[in-house]
């Protein structure tokens, strides 16, 4: 089931936040969504997840428009891991992950052994099984992010959208989250800030002032010229002699245009 959008737009008080975005997420890929602060990444993700109704254009899940699907059905296909979703409630790790079963349950379809198994599998996938009974407020930032991802996995979505999942994490936890996401069997769209990490994605979508300015393989999209125009930095591409991977070194700020 493919996720795509056509001419997507959203504005607040006349100010355009996302404008004319058309893209297709390919089945099984990890698409990196990058762009400066305020370039419309989060809004785009929310519209792709179906929790914010687009003002212009439409989002398609397979052959059907998200607007025509009940919210519950959307949630069975697409899961969103928001930036810093927090709670003051005294829930445990397991409680939080069990929430992921919500779109599959109703008053007439109660909790079953299958649901327990899916939750256990989701906890296992993010290596949080041992934290099962821990209260939410005792978790570190990285642990919370893992639990959020487990909750999204418990939704059994085919498409996983993640809004800056590595934000506020130390380097070890950043890399382990990204490693985890890449290994998932889902189609992923990940908003990222670290360009070196973005290089590991299958494809990259680059946002600038609400517009999609480039979409393609990382090395095609992230050129020095584009980084200067979009991020207002001078960057040099360096090659790691060990494995030939490309790295960015940022050596000067440019004038913001």
């Amino acid at each position: 089931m493919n996720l795509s959008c056509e001419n997507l737009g959203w504005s607040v008080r006349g100010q355009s936040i996302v404008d004319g975005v058309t893209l297709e997420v390919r089945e099984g890929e990890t698409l990196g969504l990058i762009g400066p602060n305020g370039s419309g990444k989060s809004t785009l993700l929310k519209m792709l997840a179906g929790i914010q109704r687009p003002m212009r254009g439409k989002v398609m899940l397979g052959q059907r428009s998200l607007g025509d699907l009940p919210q519950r059905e959307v949630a069975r296909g697409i899961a969103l891991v928001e930036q810093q979703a927090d709670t003051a409630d005294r829930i445990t790790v397991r409680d939080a992950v069990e929430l992921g079963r919500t779109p599959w349950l109703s008053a007439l379809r109660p909790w079953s052994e299958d649901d327990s198994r899916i939750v256990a599998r989701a906890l296992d996938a993010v290596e949080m099984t041992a934290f099962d009974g821990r209260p939410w407020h005792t978790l570190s930032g990285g642990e919370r992010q893992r639990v959020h991802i487990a909750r999204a996995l418990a939704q059994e979505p085919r498409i996983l959208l993640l809004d800056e999942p590595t934000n506020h994490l130390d380097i070890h936890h950043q890399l382990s989250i990204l490693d985890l996401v890449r290994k998932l069997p889902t189609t992923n769209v990940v908003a990222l800030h670290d360009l070196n990490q973005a290089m590991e994605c299958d494809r990259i979508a680059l946002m600038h002032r609400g517009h999609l300015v480039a979409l393609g393989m990382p090395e095609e999209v992230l050129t020095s010229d584009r980084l200067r125009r979009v991020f207002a930095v001078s960057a040099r591409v360096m090659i790691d002699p060990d494995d030939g991977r490309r790295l960015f070194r940022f050596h000067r700020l440019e004038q913001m245009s």
Partner: protein
Amino acid sequence: MTQAAAYSAARRKLHWGWITPPVLFAAIIAGATIGETRIPVATVLQVLGNNLLGTDYAVGRIDAGIVWDYRVSRAVVAACCGAGLALSGVVLQALLRNALADPYLLGISAGASTGAVAVTVAGVGAGVISLSVGAFAGATLSFLLVAALARAAGGGMGVRGAGVIVLAGIAGSQLFNALTAFVIAKSANAEQARGIMFWLMGNLSGVRWDDVWLAVPAAALGLGACLWHVRSLDAFTFGAGSAASLGVPVRRVQIVLIGLAALVTAAMVSMVGSIGFVGLVVPHAMRFVVGVRHARLVPASALAGAVFLIVSDILSRVLVPGQVLPIGVITALVGAPAFALILVRGRAR
């Protein structure tokens, strides 16, 4: 969940189902027994038997009248009000993600007060409209005003800014409280002002069987709607955005449940005046006992709210001999320290 855990969860559910009727029944019996004239439990049971099961025990007419017409109806209404207010609190705290949310936050009690004084003091309706109808109209009107204001302010009921409705509620409450004060200051005499004060603090004295037929359906409707929506209420744990991504039709659930909470509260306030602290304290206390998951929190809060209000009503009758205190005074006197205790214990954990 392992098999054993699932089994114990199922047993807990059964447990709750079993515990509710006897506890509620015991509380209602206590409400019928204890009062200015103490009536033996046996007599109370005989009266209940005569009225409910068609038995034919010989009970004094006066005792039978006090128990059936006065105290049982009063205890049943108290139970319904307690359950309804506690459930409204649960719903608002869950949906607005605000620990301080309480049924009166939406301007409901302030509007009810204005409606009540408009009828009794300013003479709106020319004697045709009763105080209850006036209070209900005022409560509904002020809630609609608050909802409209929240909507105009952009937060409304949508995914964004549930906090806006809290602010709108404060503005609405202030407005209607000012109107109430204005009406009282302008046209009430001292006797009327005292009567209104008494009503505003909550008063079950005037309750009769007629009220039961409004209170029971209102509480049952509230309980049914909450039980139907337990999973949606859980889904709001990480906010409205997260609930939406879990497949909850956020807008519809908010409109239905908040609207229903407002309606149930308005119905209760129109019968017994505004009884504070139940909707705030009972859900918080129950979170400590049964946890935050709504499948357990909803029935537990309904039961605890019902029992709490019956007990408060008993206390209001016996605490000062020869005088009935406003029940709102009792709920606040018990509720405020209980709330403080919850706050301190919550910190210590």
